[in-house]
């Protein structure tokens, strides 16, 4: 079946819904393809807030937010993106409020704000209340509100459609091919412009806050075409996932005054970040927690967690402003944060890297300014690069609103100016090859076992603390898993609702993301932000103040070619020189 839309959005999370909304306002026909139902996307799992310098609770300025974002990213963030972001996000938050988002309120009736990791006043002096929140379900409210607005606009949704191929020829995107879960039918979507906003790939790790569906599909499809993925070595481990489960426990609980304690009851963050303590950025807190555990000061039966202590906070704060995580702790651990210490451990959470884009969301084809006409990306899938080597809490929701909006606006603007490009002669041939490849192997390998081995080995070898030998071993492990994947068994042969076929396809996408991440991490011989190497333990601005661009070597399968891209070290009006990163 064939469809035609001016602008096609892939993904119905925050970035996709924002892009669809703004593309529709641009007077073009818009459709949104999602592998889930709308409101199932993982934006809904974000809890703590969206950072913007509104100054509703304490004095704040966009320059301070920009500085915090750049420093938080260990100076690898592109400063032009950080400046656009820190300014735009203020209006964008007001706009969400005008769309009806039920924010929590200050006593004056303004949007409530609270402290969050790495967000400071006066360029690092002390923590500032910048995170605008709706209790501790801010992402849920953003997702619901943006979906509601799309219902109002009449956006066309293709739910439970899985994109299998991007149609790119002669440097121009011409549409996508997608597989309909309900029927097993393959559809060609002809489009003038396509916006990729399908989220991250945390499921390559064993312990993760990510949904089962976050498998890097579009990143892999982009990468398979010989196009680059940027900064894949920078992956954020959130410090506080519920022990063993990895379920997110918002940083907002530290913003409200929660304290991390080791087995001795010590507030250990005082040793690692004397100024802002528990509100240090996530990479630093995660490493501090692992250090405590490695030095024998962990809690729990296996000593592999630390405690988060809320017991000194009033019950109404815990049950009101932190209702979500109170429910999670009670449901999954049988513990009550009002009176119990809750065990937490770092959990794979967010990809700083992804499909490289310019400030308008246009996808880049190399590190020298080349681009793919008509193809845009936004949100976690994209790397603009706002977050550099480490993302600050709240900046993911901000990113998807600001850059989802920009991608929608610019894609619509482009679509209004051009005719429909020609489709390739046989648009579904790539998809046919993909499915034939899955069905034609010997079928002796259980995909669940390959997935499990990938998740465990990535956790062990390319996790929070890295070193050369472990990552070299991981390169071989991924090669071996990819070889076994050739013989994978698709245990369901039915046409309708074949979720097994989807899971097997997703595993192939994840193996690509793991390959690009491992190669990029092994190549970067320094420590910066979330990328920490025992064998290269310092930041090296002389050699490594640059973005990684990882390309699949199409001639030598299993190999990755690395290129680079300059970091924007200046914004439009402000610039912050790289300095030692202490908190």
């Amino acid at each position, binding site marked *: 079946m064939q469809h035609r839309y001016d602008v096609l959005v892939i993904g119905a999370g925050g970035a996709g819904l924002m892009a669809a909304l703004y593309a529709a306002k641009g007077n073009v026909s818009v459709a949104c393809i999602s592998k889930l139902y709308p409101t199932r996307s993982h934006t809904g799992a974000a809890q703590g807030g969206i950072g913007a310098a509104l100054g509703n609770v304490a004095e704040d300025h966009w320059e301070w937010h920009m500085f915090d974002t750049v420093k938080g990213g260990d100076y690898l963030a592109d400063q032009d993106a950080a400046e656009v972001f820190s300014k735009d996000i203020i209006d964008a938050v*007001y706009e969400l409020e005008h769309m*009806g988002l039920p924010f929590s309120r200050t006593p004056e009736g303004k949007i409530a704000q609270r402290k969050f990791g790495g967000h400071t006043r006066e360029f690092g002096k002390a923590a500032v209340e910048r995170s605008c929140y709706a209790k501790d379900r801010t992402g*849920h409210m953003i997702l619901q509100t943006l979906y*509601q607005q799309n219902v109002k606009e009449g956006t066309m949704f293709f739910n439970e459609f899985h994109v299998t191929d991007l149609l790119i020829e002669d440097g121009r995107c011409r549409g996508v091919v997608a597989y309909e879960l309900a029927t097993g039918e393959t559809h060609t979507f002809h489009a003038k412009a396509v916006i990729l906003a399908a989220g991250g790939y945390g499921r390559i790790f064993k312990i993760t806050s990510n*949904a089962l569906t976050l498998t890097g599909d579009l990143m892999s499809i982009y990468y398979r075409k010989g196009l680059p993925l940027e900064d894949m070595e920078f992956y954020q481990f959130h410090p506080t996932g519920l022990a063993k489960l990895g379920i997110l426990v918002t940083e907002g609980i530290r913003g409200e005054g929660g304290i991390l304690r080791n087995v001795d009851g010590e507030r250990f963050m005082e040793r690692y970040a004397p100024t802002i303590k528990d509100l240090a950025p996530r990479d630093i807190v995660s490493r501090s927690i692992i250090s405590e555990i490695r030095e024998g000061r962990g809690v729990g039966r296996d000593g592999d967690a630390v405690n988060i202590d809320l017991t000194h906070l009033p019950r109404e704060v815990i049950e009101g402003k932190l209702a979500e995580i109170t429910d999670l702790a009670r449901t999954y651990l049988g513990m009550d944060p009002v009176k119990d210490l809750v065990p937490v451990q770092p959990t794979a959470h967010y990809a700083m890297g992804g499909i490289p884009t310019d400030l308008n969301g246009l996808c880049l084809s190399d590190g020298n300014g080349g681009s793919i006409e008509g193809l845009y990306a936004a949100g976690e899938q994209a790397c603009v690069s706002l977050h550099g080597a480490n993302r600050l809490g709240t900046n993911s929701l901000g990113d998807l609103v600001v850059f989802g909006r920009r991608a929608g606006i610019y894609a619509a603007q482009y679509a209004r100016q051009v005719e429909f490009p020609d489709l390739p002669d046989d648009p579904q041939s790539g998809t046919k090859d993909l499915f034939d490849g899955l069905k034609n192997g010997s079928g002796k390998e259980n995909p*669940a076992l390959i997935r499990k081995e990938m998740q465990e080995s990535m956790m062990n070898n390319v996790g929070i603390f890295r070193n050369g030998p472990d990552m070299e071993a991981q390169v071989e492990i991924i090669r071996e898993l990819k070889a076994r994947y050739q013989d994978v068994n698709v*245990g369901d042969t039915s046409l309708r609702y074949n979720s097994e076929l989807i899971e097997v396809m997703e595993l192939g996408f994840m193996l690509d993301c793991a390959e690009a991440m491992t190669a990029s991490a092994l190549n970067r011989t320094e420590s910066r932000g979330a990328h920490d190497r025992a064998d290269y333990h310092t930041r090296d601005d002389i050699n490594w103040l640059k973005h990684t661009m990882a390309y699949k070597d199409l001639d030598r399968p299993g190999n990755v070619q690395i290129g680079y891209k300059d970091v924007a070290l200046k914004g439009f009006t402000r610039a912050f020189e790289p300095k030692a990163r202490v908190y």
Partner: protein
Amino acid sequence: MTQMQHETSTAPAAAKQALPMLHIKIKILRFDPEKDRKAHWETYAIEAQAGDRVLDVINEVKWYHDHSLTFRRSCMHGICGSDAMLINGRNRLACKTLVRDVAKDGGTITIEPIRGLKVEKDLLVDMEPFFDSYKAIMPYFINESPAPAAERIQSEEEAERMAHSSNCILCACCTTSCPIFWVNGSYLGPASIVQAHRFIFDSRDEATQQRLNIMNQNTGVWRCRTAYNCTEACPRDIPITQLIEEVKRAVMYQQA
């Protein structure tokens, strides 16, 4: 009704830690439209930890026992609303229900699709009628007055009026537990009324009258017979019946 027994522990032993394991049976109502003329039960013997989610167990079945088992799932922690199912006869989210709360060692967990929506395959149902009802209540904020440069002011108390209704994740546990909905699919159902409540009681929204009119139609709130099934089924602890009563009162007095 076919009963099938499958071998256990195809999963690698390393996955299982030294915690005490529960030996349970999981009995699932299966239906494949390409093979089956009607639904049938299949039973799988599984080892699980007490703290495992029911969804973990269902994934175990799919990954190591029968790859064709079909169900929806995504977030794994009760926020996306994908995995509503009938677990031991009650509507719950599989990812928010722990094994220890529904089975003892040697016991059985029964799993069926939620009721009142067409079963497409195994535990997966047609959600379109549910979302059609959602769309019928104008589920979006309406305020055509020019917006101020900053936020619209709303008091903490006014914001709190939406605390329960805005907590809904559209999982359909409530609507598909409602006996009125089972017999009359045109009833908008508890989830849609909760959504209407979220806007009717939003001090900033200007379309209260239109929404109350929708609620006053014969597909609206008056169908509710306060069976309380919805309230008991809600995985987010929303006092749904109470919210429906508040909407009924607002319709009666034509004001929020």
